[in-house]
């Protein structure tokens, strides 16, 4: 093997990687210390960071993100575990059900969000209103995306609906590795359904739950299309996510320095979660 051969293999991959990932990452880090004008740029030190941290709207959006993270992660984990658990209890139809539950996962966010936006319309003939009106649960149509609380709930519901199949598939695979004799032993010991879950199932799949939670948490910090399509961040910023804010600051207001600083402020959180996730993966369960 010639000494240059490995580098010939790496040339093309690293060319693309350097131009569109590495260089932009370094550039935007530099940009976060500058005030950017169309022709001029001025070094401003940490003032972009100070501006982000001193902006009450940023903290409101950060609060939204915490709400999204808590509700969607817990919702997807709990429902995913429940459904996966039920699927291990049935013989016929397991493949069919898991395939169908996975369909929302594979479809594109923007398309699904546009469909949901129509279904969440404020008129009586739009899907959600018409069902609730026909079952007499409400007396007049609700403007789902027009009020802060219902708008936020709509986005949370969409996130869980789209993501739960993903968690379920991973949990199903994990549950199927647990030997049946463990449950029989637990039954002999007189443990009920809940006891078996607490003493057998959960300890054995907890590394997987950890990994899934970490990935879902990162996902919650990256909420973009669902908010961009459904509400655009409104009403009154009640559904704004970190990425829709960052996107608007950068490409509508051309606050490139501010937007970059925001990205790098969030990096320690993502990094921390990633490390947790790698820890969770490397933790092996011994039978």
């Amino acid at each position: 093997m010639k000494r240059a051969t490995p580098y010939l293999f790496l040339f093309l991959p690293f060319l693309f990687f350097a131009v569109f990932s590495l260089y932009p990452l370094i550039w935007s880090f530099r940009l976060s210390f500058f005030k950017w004008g169309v022709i001029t740029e001025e070094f401003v030190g940490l003032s972009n960071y100070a501006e982000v941290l001193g902006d009450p709207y940023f903290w409101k959006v950060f609060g939204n993100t915490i709400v999204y993270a808590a509700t969607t992660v817990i919702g997807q984990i709990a429902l995913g575990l429940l459904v996966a658990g039920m699927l291990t209890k049935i013989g016929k139809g397991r493949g069919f059900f898991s395939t169908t539950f996975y369909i929302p996962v594979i479809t594109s966010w923007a398309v699904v969000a546009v469909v949901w936006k129509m279904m969440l319309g404020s008129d009586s003939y739009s899907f959600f209103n018409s069902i609730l009106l026909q079952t007499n649960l409400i007396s007049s149509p609700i403007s789902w995306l027009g009020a802060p609380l219902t708008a936020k709930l709509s986005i949370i519901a969409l996130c869980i609906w789209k993501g739960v199949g993903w968690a379920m598939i991973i949990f199903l695979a994990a549950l199927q590795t647990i030997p049946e004799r463990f449950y029989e032993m637990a039954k002999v010991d007189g443990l009920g359904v809940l006891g078996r879950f607490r003493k057998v199932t959960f300890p054995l799949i907890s590394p997987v739950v950890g990994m899934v939670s970490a990935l879902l948490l990162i996902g919650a910090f990256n909420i973009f299309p669902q908010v961009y399509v459904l509400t655009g961040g409104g009403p009154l910023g009640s559904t704004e996510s970190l990425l829709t804010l960052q996107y608007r600051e950068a490409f509508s207001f051309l606050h490139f320095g501010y937007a970059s600083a925001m990205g790098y402020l969030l990096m320690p959180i993502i990094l921390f979660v990633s490390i947790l996730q790698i820890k969770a993966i490397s933790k092996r369960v011994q039978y």
Partner: protein
Amino acid sequence: MKKNIFYRASIYVILFIIMVIMIVPFWWMITTSFKPPGEIFTFPPTIIPREFTFSNYEFMWSSAPLGRFWLNSLLIASIVTLAVMFITSLAGFAFARLDFKGKRVLFYLLLASLTGPLFAILIPSFFIISKAGLYNTYFAIILPYIGWNIALPTLIIRAFFESIPSSVGDSAKIDGCSTFTTYRKIMLPLVMPGLVTVGIFTWMYTWDELAWAITATSSMEMRTMSAGITMFQTQYFSSWGPLCAAAVFGVLPSIILYIVMQKYYKPTLAVTGMK
């Protein structure tokens, strides 16, 4: 052991209800796409269209640029997927089977980039594309998509190359195969499942991506499905019929790919083999 019939039946009932919830938006989308406008805006909505019409599909393909969005996405997704499969297989092979100076540094560079703030990358990429004069062209979307799908796919494909026993590489060397021949003729066929996994992962990413697609293009003719349908619905929000027809086309390739390639749909992090 005999299981309680009531217990099993109730599980099936709950699973069926959940299935209905998962399917209902698609059912609504498909039926609405075949309804004439008069029937779409009625209360209560019809579960099955009383009157079938293809006019929404005709509108989508002729009067509105919705069909063009779909073809754009198909073109872009195919090119990006093939390019990423080829390019990352080169890197994956080098990291798994070759020894060279700087291997660790380059590898950790890839790994570190995965935790970088994704959105901060958009801004400099926008400058790069504009300076290169590529703004509002197919290249403006295709090239960065390839660049952003190097790190994770390389990690995935590397794990597949590593799982090949070292004796395979040794015997190829004894037979006098060059490194490139070993890669192309011997190793590549063995990592086909890995390549398909990477391909599906990249295809789904490309089909789904929204933020860059709306940043890198300005004219309707250049929009991808994600970007186009998002833009279209802000302008023509009451065109439910054509929007639903476009949405059906928007999810169709994903669902067909999923059904055909089902055994390769594994959650990505399970296959990187990182310890």
